[in-house]
């Protein structure tokens, strides 16, 4: 048997976490465990890159398959990846070490537990993206909530308890329905194996309800309007590393879920619910952009902009076009980088001023020139300027949407105007202008660790803006295959009727 790459990717952080948990921690060993966590997550990142190197983008088949029976003929541990999932794994493995580096200044107490939570989280997220069985997918998917819940609840700000519970309530509500749906799928088909279900399909008459059940879970996690209100609160209260994980990776589980499950398993229902998705996506894009415009808290502003950006993602997925789907995946990766970078950037000045209110800043460029440059790059990434990764995703999605409906693409494009307005206005109020407060004069520019983290994020945002081929190329064949499968299903369904 080949080397179990995927299991290693899942297990490595877990083992690291267990190690750290049982290490006898005293304050002077903090550095050691941090380096251990960093080492583990970095090793995982290297491993994920090696996986990408070995990955064969010319086939849509699942690769690096592993299968073990847990409970005979009921639950199988089955993992594998294709062009749709591999990029998310790399993103997860890339963001986690950055979070651990940033932990330095943001987490003041219980560092050990924090590192454990982050590493477990990484492992669960990777598990989500490579599960090929509904039951273990569900376990990973919901398991991921626990560390996030802890991160917000323990290391959060003043209203952390409220936020943690709001987060939990919302996500739980969706999850329960998904669990019911998974059980019923097993009922109908006798299997929860995704490849099996892809091949044999699910009877059309069940698809609608099942789709809605999955949708309720994914819509909350995306988050789509109107179940988005947990996100701003969660972000505001979460510590920086938590916000980063939440925005960069956790939200992507839902987008991935839509592609892999909603479209893959329930094509007929997906087609049927297109109008619902389009309307909610457009509301997300326009409505939350307008709300973002008026935010006074930086993290809330970025959180609302995330909702708008994810609106593009859901729109792109349900265009069922090559450009729309590739664009959605690209947009998710890009948003993963940009939003992570933006939250880290907010973290940097929060550390110095202990406030997130935009009005308390102004004139930073005079004291923090380096910071101003990198923040500009991230802002432009969020605005979707050509030459940043943000552009490619949005543009491909809009091209895909245009094929479906001129009106939808036109309305979504208004979001592009609004994003420029709220991001540049934010940048102006924070960075430009006269220095209004004496505290700001004392602020120091980026230190080495911060320069490192932020530069590491600047590079891919610009590189993939000019040369997105490595990402697009990876996803191309799998997406083609998915669309092919989708169309066959729709057509055969029409013929039956």
């Amino acid at each position, binding site marked *: 048997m080949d080397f179990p790459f995927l299991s290693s990717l899942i297990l490595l952080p877990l083992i690291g976490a267990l190690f750290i948990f049982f290490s006898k921690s005293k304050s002077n060993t903090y550095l050691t465990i941090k380096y251990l966590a960093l080492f583990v997550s970095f090793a995982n990142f290297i491993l994920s890159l090696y996986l990408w190197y070995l990955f064969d983008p010319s086939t849509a088949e699942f690769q690096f398959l592993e299968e073990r029976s847990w409970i005979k003929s009921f639950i199988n541990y089955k993992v594998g990846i294709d062009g749709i999932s591999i990029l998310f794994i790399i993103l997860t493995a890339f963001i986690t070490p950055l979070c651990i580096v940033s932990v330095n200044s943001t987490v003041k107490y219980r560092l050990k537990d924090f590192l454990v*939570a982050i590493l477990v989280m990484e492992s669960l997220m990777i598990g989500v993206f490579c599960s090929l069985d509904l039951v273990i997918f569900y376990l990973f998917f919901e398991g991921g909530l626990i560390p996030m819940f802890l991160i917000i609840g323990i290391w959060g700000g003043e209203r952390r308890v409220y936020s943690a519970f709001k987060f939990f309530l919302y996500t739980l509500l969706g999850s329960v329905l998904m669990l019911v749906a998974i059980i019923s799928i097993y009922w109908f088909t006798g299997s929860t194996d995704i490849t099996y279900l892809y091949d044999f399909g699910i009877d059309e008459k069940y698809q609608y309800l099942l789709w809605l059940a999955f949708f309720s879970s994914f819509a909350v996690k995306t988050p789509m309007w109107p179940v988005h209100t947990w996100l701003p609160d969660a972000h505001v209260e979460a510590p920086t590393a938590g916000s980063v994980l939440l925005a960069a990776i956790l939200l992507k589980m839902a987008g991935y879920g839509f592609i892999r499950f909603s479209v893959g398993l329930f094509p007929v229902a997906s087609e049927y619910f297109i109008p619902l998705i389009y309307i909610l996506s457009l509301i997300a894009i326009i409505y939350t952009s307008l709300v973002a415009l008026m935010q006074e808290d930086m993290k809330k502003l970025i959180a609302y902009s995330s909702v708008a950006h994810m609106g593009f993602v859901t729109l792109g997925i349900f265009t069922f076009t090559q450009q729309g789907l*590739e664009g959605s995946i690209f947009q998710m990766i890009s948003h993963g980088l940009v939003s992570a970078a933006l939250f880290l950037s907010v973290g940097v000045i929060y550390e110095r001023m202990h406030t997130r209110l935009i009005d308390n800043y102004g004139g930073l460029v005079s004291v923090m020139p380096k910071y101003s440059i990198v923040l500009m790059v991230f802002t432009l990434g969020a605005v979707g300027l050509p030459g940043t990764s943000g552009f490619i995703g949005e*543009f491909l999605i809009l091209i895909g949407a245009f094929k479906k409906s*001129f009106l939808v693409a036109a309305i979504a494009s208004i979001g592009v*105007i*609004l994003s420029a307005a709220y991001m*540049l206005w934010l940048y102006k109020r924070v960075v430009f202008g006269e220095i209004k407060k004496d505290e700001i004069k004392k602020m120091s520019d980026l230190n080495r660790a911060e320069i490192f983290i932020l530069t590491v994020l600047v590079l891919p945002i610009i590189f993939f803006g000019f040369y997105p*081929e490595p990402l697009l190329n990876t996803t191309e064949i799998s997406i083609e295959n998915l669309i092919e499968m989708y169309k066959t299903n729709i057509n055969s369904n029409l013929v039956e009727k």
Partner: protein
Amino acid sequence: MEFEYLIIFLPLVGAIISGFFGKFLGSRNSEILTSLFVTISSIFSFLIFYKVFNDGYINNLDIFTWINSGSFNVNWSIKIDALSSVMLVVVTLVSSIVHIYSIGYMSHDPHKQRFMSYLSLFTFSMLMLVTSDNFLQLFFGWEGVGLCSYFLIGFWFKKESANAAAIKAFVVNRVGDFGFALGIFLIFYLFGTVNYAEVFELIPQSLDVNLTFLGLSFNAINLICILLFIGAMGKSAQIFLHTWLPDAMEGPTPVSALIHAATMVTAGVFLVVRCSPIYEYSPLALNIITIVGMSTAFFAATVALAQDDIKKIIAYSTCSQLGYMFFAAGVGAYNVAMFHLFTHAFFKALLFLGSGSVIHSFKDEQNINLMGGVWKKLPYSWILMVIGTLALTGFPFLSGFYSKDAIIEFAYLRGNTVGYFAAGIGVFTALLTSIYSWRLMFKTFHGNYNNKKLNISSLHESPMVMIIPLIILAIGAIFSGFLFKDLFIGIESSSNFWKNSIFFLEPLSQDHPPSWFIFLTPILVILSIPAAYYIFVKNIKITNEIVNGNLPLYNFLKNKWYFDELYDYLFVNPSKKIGLYFWKKIDLRFIDRFGPDGISNLIKNISLFAVKFQNGFIYHYAFIMLLGFSALLTFLILR
């Protein structure tokens, strides 16, 4: 290595070096380096231009793949033909002059490296825009120049007004880009490609394609043309999307000369000319362009009459001249539009840089009411600006004379109602242009000295590093019309020079309008000089009487037709209000109240939970759950 790479990438290299390593290099070295690189780029551009008109050289280089998704394929590319070679010359020449001029103008600024870096970056983006062989790279350059314009308008970041102007420029441009992007989507949707050559080839077969939108049927070609033109309106500050350009004068003056006069704002004209193979098949769109162009020409000229800020007057003048270029393109005389773009670059950059020299001498004073009587103190600036003004107003045998009069003539020769109307507006606007330009000159340089803060003896002429670039531009402003008129708009020009880069469905009319019409404009222009002198210098009372007698009209012009107020009322304030409403009322009051908080008992109990949370009970449970989960997982995978 081909020239093309050097032309385009030298400015980028300069921008990067000056931007990131400016501190190590020092300000003087950065200035010299960036100026040198752009100058080299400009020399090579002239070489290319020479090769194009002498040997009919064309080239299309693919650099590497940009986006490849399904059937959507785009490359980074460099396309050289007559059209792009003209733009190369204009962009790199004005840019190198502005680089050198800035060494003097910005000598007291602490952020010289950053400034030079932005200028070079702008040049690079503009070159990417003009040498693209497809709509997407064009869009890249388009947004790139918009970004640099944003940086440069807001260059003095401490000024609140400069920051606001920068954002306004970017956002208003995005409104235009919204149309532009939809145009690109539509092109891809119809033709499956965004490459110029491939699209243009498919146009003649697609004339009858109709699209249904909101129950109405539209001709696809018309729709494409109009959408692209909306983008052009944003970038070239045409009426309704012009509001950002006057505000953009908050930036340093060299920026206004380079970006907001000679190059970036002409990108819209370039777009329309580049797409002549599409526009030629859409008479509707051409008529719209003509109407928008002439409205802008007229509107901006009237506003310029009543402004007091020297740079704003020139900004409105730019707006107005861009209107001329558009209506030239609208009547199908694309080559004439390009010709005016070419000559305008010289005299408008000259006027801006000249006014910069005056502002510099007056220690950053921009109000022309606080100047006057200084022509002997600032002789070079004065004579250079006189040349610029003569060229702008179309004084016989200077550059503007050849290009502007050609526009009016071709409008007349178009032979339809819109054409005659445009020609009439063109003549009238030429008169207005002359009046506001001489008003500016006389109030700035003649009459009494009106500045109480500065003593007249403290004024000094600008240094040579600023004057010499102006002289080069002045030479261009005098001779470029006469020297290049045959090449650009001569009878044989389309077959000799433009070749395939501009497409004419029917050859341009070679008739001449009646001779009274030909002489009308120059005579009006010449006569307006003494008239303006009389009104604005000799007998100032008349000005005041005119103003007081028509106060509502004066206020209307002074307030720029109230466009800003209207847009605040229609768009800006409602957006903010709606955003606030969505947030406070719908998100918080409605969704949260009936959603998560609606399970209110539970939430109320949170306070109870919270105590335990802090005690660590819940936390312990959850953590142990997590750990158990992990252990189980480990066990199961390893089993």
